């Protein structure tokens, strides 16, 4: 009956969705009960490096640059989760800049529809530190459409205004090798990461501290100090165990040559 309603090849994704939704319910209850804490997770050196980089920027009297990618403002694609994590980091860096009185420059993505969210996160960060008046709208830089025009503008900003810390988190394509390396050449402490595995190489090569792939989500949960976001890390792990189980069962079924059961995995 159910198979008649579903589109072809969507049963397995639906089961995974059901498993993770059930896990979300259970772990959210644990989070509300105070059973989930950030100190239960391993330390990620790149998080401490962000604070270090803000301190370096203040000492050198150079601005802190934050970039979430030329197309890092996607609100309606498969990559929207990375946009949300990048916004969490933006809120965090805005708080740090407000706290240590560092100048913040935000290189906004070309998806202009994300601008209200970006501005809200920065304002909220300054407000959390009680320094709303320190927020300057001109710190939010918009460069129009196109990854390569964005890259030109960002690197020009590094050159003209200097760069103490360059924090780059979010959706990156071919825009990141130039911007990261130019920041490095201009003397920045480079910290960054992306969930797009195909571009992780650039961050691994060019950053002093890197968040590898999924680590941006974990780090986002840690810096938020929010129990629901921290619970997400446990839910992700449960999803990994489920994927491993599927791999193991699929391998055994495949080796035994059970075609009907193997076909179930293709559903």
């Amino acid at each position, binding site marked *: 009956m159910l198979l008649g309603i579903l589109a072809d090849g969507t049963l397995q994704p639906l089961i995974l969705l059901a498993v993770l939704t059930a896990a979300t319910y259970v772990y959210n209850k644990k989070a509300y009960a105070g059973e989930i804490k950030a100190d239960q997770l391993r330390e990620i050196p790149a998080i401490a490096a962000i604070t270090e980089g803000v301190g370096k920027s203040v000492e050198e009297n150079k601005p802190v640059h934050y970039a979430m990618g030329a197309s890092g403002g996607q609100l309606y694609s498969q990559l929207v989760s990375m946009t949300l994590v990048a916004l969490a980091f933006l809120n965090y860096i805005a708080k740090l800049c407000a706290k240590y009185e560092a100048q913040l420059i935000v290189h906004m993505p070309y998806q202009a529809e994300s601008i209200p969210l970006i501005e809200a996160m920065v304002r909220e960060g300054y407000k959390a530190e009680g320094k709303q008046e320190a927020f300057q709208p001109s710190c939010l830089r918009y460069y129009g459409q196109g990854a390569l025009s964005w890259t030109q503008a960002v690197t020009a900003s590094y050159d003209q205004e200097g760069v103490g810390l360059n924090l780059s988190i979010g959706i990156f394509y071919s825009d990141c090798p130039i911007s990261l390396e130019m920041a490095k050449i201009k003397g920045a402490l480079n910290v960054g990461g992306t969930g797009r595995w195909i571009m992780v190489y650039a961050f691994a090569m060019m950053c002093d501290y890197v968040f590898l792939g999924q680590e941006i989500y974990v780090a986002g949960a840690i810096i938020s100090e929010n129990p629901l976001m921290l619970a*997400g890390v446990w839910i992700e792990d449960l999803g990994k165990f489920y994927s491993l189980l599927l791999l193991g069962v699929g391998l055994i079924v495949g080796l035994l040559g059970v075609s009907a059961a193997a076909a179930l995995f293709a559903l």
Partner: protein
Amino acid sequence: MIIIAITGILMVAAYFIPWAPLQGVKGVMTSWIVVISAATVAMGFVYMTTSQYKLYQKNRSTLQLVYTVTPYVFFAGFLISALAYPGGSNSPEYRWWFTNIYSNVGATIYAIMYFTLASSAYRTFRVSSMEAIALIAGGMIYTLRQIPLFQVYIPWIVPLGEWFLLVPNTGGGRGAVIAAALAALVVGIRTLWGKEVTLEVSG
């Protein structure tokens, strides 16, 4: 949060259920995306002007004035060539601006990327730790297998390089992709649940 949750649930349902009304809703929402995206560019233009003006206020040199004015000159050029000639953005005048200016500048910037990759590769491949040695060994074998000289004199380098590409590289990459996809899925479920903290903070 309620609007986001309802919209998200409808889109998820449209993915799983091939029911015509749901697909229709999905189509309408996709059209809205295009409209919203186009309408908000004007907002971006205001932000761009604000920051450009502030930069000029800070540094009132002739060079800064040139930096400030140049984007608007080209913006006007593109806009006029698209509006003033028949065919709009398909007119020969607009195509000239696009092909001879935008595409060439883009290609130049893209080419610069390879210089940045070379300088960062030098730093990355410096032998400074066991991890760096493993990286350089794998990288060299993978790269040298494509050079005919090495294919002739060290033929075993070809299958070894292929093995690096197809086994450790693909295996590690798949693990990372699955982990990132699961994390994205968890964020998605949290958003549908109305509990995404980032969206709560931004109001």
